[in-house]
């Protein structure tokens, strides 16, 4: 099982760029439930990877593994060439893995921004405070500097007029845009989107997708788990179809219109 899901094969351009995210034989089990059964994936910097698949295929779990919200059971994930979650140590004359501590995990997470299906905004803070929170308390940025940054990020997602609103006073689409601004304020190299439009009313999906499209145009490295086939076709550099804990098919966005695997064909028929 050495499916290397990649469209950018750098060598022939004579340029060895390091992958932004590289997954090698990733396994994940919850108790006796084997969710991921050997995922290989390479995401190059500045590209958009869209992961498609039916519910329960393990695509969200894979995204959560990258950000260490879950712990790997087997295999390896590298972000910017650095192994995440563990470090190699000498133990009784053998090289073994040791779990990273809180601080080391936080440092690795700083490269990644994440957007959740249910937004997960902090309800006791206004939009502005939500975005300022991490720059002030994690990066120890000054309040006024953080405020400027937060205002700029909120303007970027079209919410410059909503600074002092609480999440409960915003629509779902607006809340998700605040969540995107909150992640961007930490200046991540890679953005992870976990079904960012699945909890939205149909008429609010467009505003979130347009912000994501704008981010992709600016060259952000993105991994997006979604059911929005249209978005995948337009924006993705790489499309990965997962089912039953394995990568069934991968390739450029053209595979959406010309799928090879019957399971992918079947899935597309149901979604489109």
């Amino acid at each position, binding site marked *: 099982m050495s499916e290397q899901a990649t469209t950018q094969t750098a060598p022939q351009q004579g340029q060895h760029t390091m992958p932004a995210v590289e997954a090698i034989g990733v396994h994940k089990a919850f108790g006796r439930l084997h969710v991921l059964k050997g995922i290989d994936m390479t995401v190059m910097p500045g590209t958009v990877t869209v992961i498609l698949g039916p519910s329960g295929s393990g695509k969200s779990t894979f995204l959560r593994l990258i950000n260490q919200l879950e712990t790997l059971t087997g295999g390896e994930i590298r972000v910017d060439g650095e192994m995440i979650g563990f470090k190699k140590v000498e133990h009784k004359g053998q090289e073994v893995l040791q779990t990273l501590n809180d601080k080391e995990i936080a*440092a690795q997470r700083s490269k990644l921004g994440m957007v959740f299906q249910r937004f997960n905004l902090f309800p006791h803070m206004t939009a502005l405070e939500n975005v300022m929170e991490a720059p002030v308390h994690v990066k120890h940025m000054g309040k006024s500097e953080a405020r400027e940054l937060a205002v700029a990020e909120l303007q970027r997602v079209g919410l410059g*007029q*909503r600074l002092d609103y609480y999440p409960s006073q915003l629509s779902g689409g607006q809340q998700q845009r605040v969540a995107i601004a909150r992640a961007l304020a930490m200046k991540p190299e890679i953005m992870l989107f976990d079904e960012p439009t699945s909890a939205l009313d149909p008429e609010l999906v467009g505003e979130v997708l347009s912000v994501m499209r704008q981010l992709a145009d600016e060259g952000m490295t993105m991994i997006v788990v979604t059911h929005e086939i249209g978005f995948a076709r337009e924006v993705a550099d790489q499309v990965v179809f997962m089912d039953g804990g394995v990568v069934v098919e991968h390739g450029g966005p053209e595979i959406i219109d010309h799928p090879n695997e019957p399971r992918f064909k079947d899935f597309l028929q149901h979604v489109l």
Partner: protein
Amino acid sequence: MAKKQVDGEGLDIPDRIHALPVRRTGPVVAGVIVALLAAMLAQGLVTNPRFEWNIVWKYLFNENVLEGIGYTLLLTVISMVVAIILSVILAIMRKSINPVLRGVSWFFIWFFRGTPVYTQLVFWGLFSVLVPKLSLGIPFTSVSFWSIDSSTIITAFNAAWIGLALNEAAYLSEIVRAGLEAVDPGQTEAAKALGMKRSLIMRRIILPQAMRIIIPPTGNETIGMLKTTSLVLAVPFTLELQFATNAIANRIYKPIPLLLVACIWYLFITSILMVIQSRLEKHFGKGFEARSIVTEDNGDELDGPVAVSETKKDRIARGNNVKMIGLNA
């Protein structure tokens, strides 16, 4: 409180309906019955000579009574503050990844919740007899870094608030734990994804949201504590309100009027505590259950920018007020 709003006020609605309200006799009948009962009660209270209101009035602001109120308040405040701090620590320990901390917290709660507060107060009163010297050293050796006579630290007053605080902390920590567990786990995930550390997440994200759930029962506990302070005669500490009024009653052979004096003061202080509680609820309720106003204005830049006017801000502020009234009721 704001006056009742009429739906669609100021809007041009054709054929607006101006209907009379439903005729209901129930509230009128109930009102009359309650008014009669209240009048009977008032008559009984005022005209029954055995209540001896002249004596109530005479002792209401008695020097010993006022001193008793002072000590009651002091005991309530000190023991609640200590209990709240301790209970948050206990609740966080209970949810710790460290099994030793979890065990200590479990044992503390088990012990102090499982024995009567009266017994605990007696124990604290006897502390300096049981343990004449407090010292810090290595157990089962003669090594001692520091030691002091217990009786200088565990005075009657200190024994009283220590006893009350430790007992209360055990109860409160369960309330705090319930509050912490009520916060959506997605909040922790989002905070982690932003690079926040465990302690920071607890302080900035989880606790402020848990407070909203913790405060009403804590207000309850505070009011309970106000009255539990009367048990400190077990220590014995004999300067608080209940003991002070009882002492006067025994001296002048008038138990009823002095019970009334105590009741009046307890009710008065409870009322003040209720006001403080509703203020706190309002503070920690920020951002919750605020009515969505997005449908009624158009400040979204994606649809073209519109400045948020003063009236809209007022409307948001009012929305925030409205939801609190329900909570206080």
